[in-house]
């Protein structure tokens, strides 16, 4: 009799807490990020295609599927490779030199005197950062430009330059102070 009542008590307790937890799991469900989302969040979003995929998200999908390696993103460079390695529990490796090299942040600049309004760069821009209409002059919204260089090649009159972003007061960063020398033991 005691055994039965003990079982009943424990059993009903277990059932009650299971129901409570089940309810809580459904009620307070946290938004779960898929692996692709997590990888995509680490990529620089230049959408440059240097990884051989048509954008950052397709590259993230390829990594998640296991089709692509983690060292194919030149704009992200060592930082991105390190972050991906940590996320995926792999060893970091140097950037694949065949993909390109890490450079300073650049933005596209259209020489407006030469632009013929052909619209080709606008079609090429992966983030809609070029403004213009057919047979009208085009211009780059530099705050939106990711520096992917995809607009440079299609331009039939070669009027697009990539320019390194100026160091101004707004994007200046404090240098890291020189650390104290280590004391020998």
């Amino acid at each position, binding site marked *: 009799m005691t055994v039965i009542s003990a079982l009943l008590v424990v059993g009903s307790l277990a059932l009650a807490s299971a129901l409570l937890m089940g309810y809580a799991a459904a009620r307070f469900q946290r938004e779960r990020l898929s692996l692709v989302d997590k990888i*995509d969040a680490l990529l*620089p*979003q*230049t*959408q440059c295609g240097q990884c051989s995929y048509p*954008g*950052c*998200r397709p590259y993230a999908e390829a990594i998640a599927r296991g089709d692509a390696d983690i060292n194919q993103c030149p704009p992200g460079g060592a930082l991105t490779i390190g972050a991906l390695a940590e996320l995926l529990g792999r060893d970091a490796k140097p950037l694949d030199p065949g993909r390109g090299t890490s450079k300073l942040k650049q933005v596209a600049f259209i020489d407006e*005197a*030469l632009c*013929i309004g*052909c619209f*080709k760069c606008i*079609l090429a821009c*992966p*983030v*809609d*950062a070029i403004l213009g209409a057919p047979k009208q002059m085009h211009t780059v919204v530099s*705050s*939106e430009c*990711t520096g992917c260089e995809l607009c440079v*090649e*299609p*331009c*039939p*009159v*070669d*009027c697009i330059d990539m320019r390194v972003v100026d*160091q*101004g*007061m707004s*994007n*200046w*960063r*404090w*240098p*890291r*102070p*020189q*650390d*104290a020398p*280590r*004391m020998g033991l």
Partner: protein
Amino acid sequence: MSQTLWQFHGGLKLPGHKALSNREPSIPAAIPERLFLPLQQHIGIASRPTVKIGEKVLKGQLIASAEGYVSVPVHASTSGTVIDIGDYPVAHPSDVDARCIVIEPDGDDVWVERRVPAQCDLLGPKAVNDMIRDAGIVGLGGAGFPSHVKVNEGVENVVDTLIINGAECEPYITCDDRLIRERADEVIAGASLISRTVQAKRCIVAVEDDMRDAYAALEKVLIGDIELAKVPAIYPAGGEKQLIFTLTGKEVPCGRLPIHIGIVMHNVATAAAVYRVVHYGEPLVSRYVTVTGSVVSPRNMQVLLGTPVGDLVDQCGRPDGPPKKVIMGGPMMGIPVQDERVPVIKTTNCILVTDALERGPQMPCIRCGDCVDVCPVNLLPQQLYWYARAQDFDTAQDLHLFDCIDCGCCAQVCPSNIPLVQYFFFAKSEIAAEEEARGSADRARGAYESRTARLAKDEAERARHLQQGDIGESRAKNDRGQKKAYIQAAIERTKAKRATAREREGSPKDNATVGPDRKSTPESNE
């Protein structure tokens, strides 16, 4: 006047060196040969020039207008001619040049017409606020936050206490001290005006207990129910959150502003400037500046904004011997000035000429905890230092890095001479840059996703039209042919343009590798 005062944690009793400069009455500084007026002298968005090069301007004339709510206009500090709008050195740790309007004074110092409202004492809050904004007034204590924003927040919220801050706590600086002694009536009138505008229940004017003459001067002209307070001279007693705690016992919560606990604070010089704009129609064109340290005759001067620092040093007597360090601000929080053309701006309270601030060589942290004892914000500087150094910025933020007020107490007492504040500046700027990068990556991701979706939709639409026979295949081909011809013609035109341009430059060299010939046949893919 006796009132309960609270004592904030930490702080330092520092040698004041105030007597160096506060004995002599202030004098107006000479009008310099050139005035350099930066477009960004305040926190917020830089102002936009409204004058052109070559234009004649009068003293007090608007030369750059405010761009947005948290922004203020700039006025010409004297009459003269605008000779340039370009990048010049300013006081900034980066040494990056900033956009300035350069005025060549004509020496006459002629004012623009100053409009004074008929009944200054009866102005409504909106009118006073507009006048403060249009006069370009910012916090003159050093932070440079646009004053009209603070006043406006005060109007829109219930203000329990208005504090007028005369607690000039950093060593060497005496510009507020001299201003109070010489213009106590303006400070009190300004305080009363702001108090009325924000409908404060209490108004306290606070000075440090070693500013006896200033206290006496204020006492003499006290009006209404404005209270006076003396706070202990412990650095940083004049820090906003520290002074609030000292006077009211209230702490401003993390990441909140004083207005959230019903308090508004303005500097004494700001109060005087508010008085001058309302009663005399004078915008902010000059300020008190302490020139002190090893100059021959240290003193306070009334300086036109935009006056180069070097001019002031010369007027107070350049010290003999090898060139010394010039610091804009005080010894604790000032910025070293590399170029003597750097101008005095709205937030410049002191020019300190010295070479006595060099520290010994930096050594490893010995975890003595002295920095913890002196931190006025109750932070753990040595922990913040480790995490900033290891670039573990998340942990540094968890330890409230952004509550640090950059006062420098920790670095001052560090027996290992570690430049702690520099590490904190480094960490804060890296975090800000990281957030900026994340923001633009998110924008790029959004733009890419919406473009991908749009292209897919267009493609589907196109397929549907083709199926329905709206666009015949022949017509599409014809279109493509025309387009090709048009582009080819345009390319020819551009080539010709380039060729003539090259001829004009007179450089016969042909850079064919980068020339337009590289891509002679445009692909006709759409």
